[in-house]
């Protein structure tokens, strides 16, 4: 069955969910997909830059090539509670300041290596209950959510699942005692 047809079909019988625009990623629909978030174009560009640092392009495509930033926003918009959406957007808002304070430069002006170091630091943030600590916790939450959805959006993408590590709808007969040593592994270079 045609994929779009199938999706429309689900939407119809499941009571007209607002799913179609969000999976389509086409330009006219895209803003509606983030209606629960107050995200500016600049912030979206920043999110894209972060996801690009998390999974960059190399020998094979990276997160930016696979529209992962859109996927992140769809998930936060549709699948996060209101409270978590607020934490996420607060963290996104606070990130430029955090980057400048911590790394001494705007995020965009950092080298790849510096970006990675900053993100690893940011991912480890847990914060505390003071006003400043609350902001740090939001930054940490924003970055860990972004990393999680970057991984999901990248690994469960058409590109990865058809061209790199093909997903099989028919996994084959069960073998309940396979020697791990006998399994052939082919290395994929990112």
């Amino acid at each position, binding site marked *: 069955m045609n994929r779009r*047809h199938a*999706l429309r079909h*689900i939407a119809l019988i499941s009571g007209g969910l607002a799913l179609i625009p969000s999976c389509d990623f086409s330009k006219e629909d895209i803003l509606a997909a983030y209606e629960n978030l107050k995200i500016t174009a600049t912030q979206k560009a920043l999110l894209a830059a972060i996801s690009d640092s998390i999974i960059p392009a190399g020998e094979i495509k990276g997160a930016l090539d696979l529209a992962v930033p859109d996927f992140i926003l769809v998930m936060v918009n549709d699948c996060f509670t209101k409270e978590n959406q607020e934490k996420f957007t607060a963290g996104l808002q606070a990130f430029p300041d955090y980057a400048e304070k911590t790394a001494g430069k705007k995020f965009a002006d950092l080298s790849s290596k510096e970006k990675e170091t900053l993100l690893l630091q940011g991912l480890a943030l847990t914060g505390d209950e003071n006003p400043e600590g609350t902001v740090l916790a939001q930054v940490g939450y924003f970055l860990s959510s972004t*990393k999680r959805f970057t991984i999901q959006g990248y690994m469960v993408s058409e590109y990865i*699942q058809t061209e790199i590590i093909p997903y099989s709808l028919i996994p*084959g007969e069960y073998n309940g005692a396979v020697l791990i040593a006998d399994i052939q592994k082919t290395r994929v270079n990112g």
Partner: protein
Amino acid sequence: MANLNLRSTQERTYQAIVVGSGISGAWAAKELCDLGVKTLMIERGPDVKHLKDYPTTNMLPHEFPHRGQLTEKIKEENPVISKCYAFREDAMHFFVKDAEHPYVQEKPFDWIRGYQVGGKSLMWARQVQRWSDFDFEGPARDGFAVDWPIRYKDIEKWYSHVEKFAGVSGFKDGIAHLPDGEFLPGYDLNVVEKYFAETMKKEYGGERHVISARCAHIHGNADAFAAQGRGSCQNRNLCQRGCPFGGYFSSNSSTIPWALKTGNLTIRPDAVVHSVIYDEAKGKATGVRIIDRLTKEVEEFYADVLFINAAALNTNAILLNSTSTRFPNGLGNDSGVLGKYVAFHNYRARVSGEYEGHAEYTTTGGRPTSGYFPRFRNVYKQETDFLRGYAAGFSAGRGQGPNTDGIGMELKNNLLNPGQYGPWHVGSHMMGETLPKDSNYVALDGSLKDEWGIPQLKVSMDYDDNDEKMVKDYLEQMTEMFTKAGFTNIQTSDSKQAPGLDIHEMGGVRMGKDPKTSMLNANHQLHAVPNVYVTDGSSMTSTSTQNPSLTYMAFAARAAHHAVAESKKK
């Protein structure tokens, strides 16, 4: 009736009417059609045609906008159905949404429903263990509910009959209280599950078994199923979307197309049954009154024989709403037990653990089933401080968890090249028998009505002390067994989930020997209205520990043959 459909009575008359197209209704219809009976099958929901109406069946994971996850909006709007394990982005269109069909929870009850042709047979878990006399004799031996009017010998050949047609994979395990059946080749347990099974045999003197659960999947030679247009299970584990191979049994892939081929079946979808029509002069039921789901028009259909298989609680609702001068409290309800003695399965408890052994092994491919622990408590005699017992699921598996360490190219390569295997994870969940009792009941609400003007169903079911003791025992016993097997990091949990989420609600129209204390006789007929048969979950006198669907199927086939034999006597 002013808006009664004007088509002639003759056009709306059949030899038999079956209400419900789920696992039991469609079985009754298939048998009736095979026996040459012109049959009308009525379904309250829309039609779902095999292959054609499985919109997600071949979708890849990335094609789901949320990769399978439910959105917050859906969860907020559907607090009940969102609890169901199978209500996910790929199959949610087959489940009833909370707002569509409200009901009254006098006590918390998660009612999981599928209103469409095929009912829940599309999304069921496909486990088909036979019941035995240890189940059918349970109430009489242990002094609860009423005695079943039938025994295993009455149903044995019907189990064989439905297993051969549905396709059941399993092994002949030779366990007295889990009788063997007509099996296609079984699915092997994996290396750790086998180890656990052997350990249990040794540790408990051969009294505790772990087997590969019998499941309604075609495995091995599929030739016998070609006539149904079905092929082998492909181990996709996407069953809840509807199977393009017909690899598992559903009404949609099996009994319905088969019955249609006889030329004897008419399906009327979108027809909400209001009540059974009782003719006071003739002293029998003559048909059903339906309300069109979409147009709200009232229409009547007539037949000599009626099967009410609307799924357990809805069959109760229909009979309760079928009042007449003769039956002011619901059809066939002289005894006053209609709607009472409902019960369910206790799925609250789980135990998990890890196993460091067999570290050199893993598994490949897929399978549609896993391990099964038949009941071992109180089987031959009463030995605990609670009545009856529990079965349990058991499975072991391991994987190379995605390595999400690092960032940048390091992370990317970690993700693309999963490294070390983790330990084996083992898990079990209980399936406890609950005792039907007077205080657990369903009834029609006195004032609230649904969209079709039919009183809403009020559900009042709860756990009792027997269930609490059983949960405790399961957790203790499974912990002991895991420990004996050398499993580590053993975790126990009691979800305290409300009844209903087990999706094994039963009773309310129970079978029994005495019309004063039961609704149905040994042939599945209403004692007081013998041309009405009921063979779905509502007819169950007790609940056993085994998944009940196979027994509904066998009951439906048996009852259909009885109905035809009776009609020939006249």
